[in-house]
């Protein structure tokens, strides 16, 4: 089952299948494991409490027709971009170092010969 969950799907084959929710399409394509399924059984009592809570009417309206994409919190981004440069931290690879290869850095004053 675990092997099946980790199987990567061809996104073109599932992209337009209306019986598969878009979130599921992405999950299958990225071959994410269904951790939630295991967690669901453990949290049944908590779910009951949540079920009877009044749902906020404000939250859903704007979120489905928005321009600004969602970002991680500033704290997470700080960790991502400020990991120690000398360490072998994997996150650092995605931070400034990763971006530096894509930036055209201007020469400093005095560097140019002209």
């Amino acid at each position, binding site marked *: 089952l675990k092997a099946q969950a980790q199987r990567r799907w061809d*996104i*073109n084959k599932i*992209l*337009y299948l*209306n019986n598969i929710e*878009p*979130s599921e*399409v*992405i999950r299958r*394509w990225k071959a994410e494991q269904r951790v939630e399924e295991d967690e669901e059984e453990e949290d049944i009592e908590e779910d009951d409490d949540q079920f009877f809570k*009044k*749902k906020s*009417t404000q939250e*859903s*309206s*704007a*979120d*489905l*027709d*928005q*321009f*600004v*994409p969602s*970002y*991680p919190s*500033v704290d997470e*981004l*700080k960790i*991502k*971009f400020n990991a120690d440069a000398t360490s072998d931290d994997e996150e650092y690879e*995605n*931070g*400034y170092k*990763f*971006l*530096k290869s*894509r*930036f*055209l*850095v*201007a020469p400093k004053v005095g560097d140019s010969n002209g």
Partner: protein
Amino acid sequence: MSSKNKGVVTFEGHRNFRLRLILSTLSGKPIKITKIRSNDMNPGLKDHEVSFLRLLEAVTNGSRIEISYTGTTVVFNPGIIIGGELTHNCPTTKPVGYFIEPMLYLAPFSKKKFSIIFKGLTASDKSKDAGIEAIKWGLLSVMEKFGVREASLHILKRGSPPLGGGEVHFMCNSLIPQPLTIHALDAPKFSAIRGVAYCTRVSPSVVNRMIDSARQVLRPTGVEVNITADVWRGESSGLSPGFGVTLVAELKKGWRILTEGVGSAGSLPEDLGEKVAYELLDELTKSCIIGRNQIMLSLVYMTIGKEDIGRLKLHKDQIDEDFVWILRDIKNVFDTEVFLKDGAEEPIPGEEQYMTATVKGIGFTAASKKIA
């Protein structure tokens, strides 16, 4: 969710509400949107959605809108895009960007030129809608790539939440039969980061505090950073105090990727500057040639383009749930599918993080070019 019945494309829910109406208008196909917040405590359309329907009615000729008694169902029979000169008063629940953004999809294919003055909030911290700079720098630049060169957006007055009082003039003098076919297959380098930090009815030092904190985050990139201060005073500064910042990474060949933020009551300008700068870096990490907020416009323009294959390189992180929803909505209306080619299949190192979206244009013809 959608289905087709007697030529009417049916959607469920309020997701991509504006996009679905825009696609209907461009295609000329009537649509029916059902179950709009039907399980919500306040079911049906919100005031900004009704306002958007009114705007759509104003810029088209012959559109017919039917809203059910509860507001949970809308039937839209599109007319011809005519444009023209008008003023639209936007409700204060949404910034004017919410209304301007969909106009970008229609304006170049109109019968007459678009010249609309939008009145209301120019930015909002409560909703995730496009700000004026985001449209000006992020979306108009994308339109240019598709051959729409004479579109402009001018801020006459800035209007911060909650009271607004802003005015924005959107003009589109470029009437084209259909968008050009693009082949954006490079991953160009970022040549500079620019931006604007603005404030209305607060101390001008707020702007400098935002700029300094944003600069501090962007400094390690080593690229040129140039953020302009834009302080609004007097009548042109609207009715409420506020501040915000927009940052844009400029790529070679004129592409731009951006992030923006608006200050909330009680928040610090330094925190906002820092947050928006980090978000820009995150967006750049997840982008190739366009940002996530430019994908929808690009895909729609590619779909309605000439009957030719258009190609756009995307980062794999940009392919998310929202992306799939957009593609499905486009398919439901235009019956066109986008093919995604995995960069991992290419023998070039570094390409594995990208996908190429390929779509064949439908050969759309603008209302102004149609022969009666």
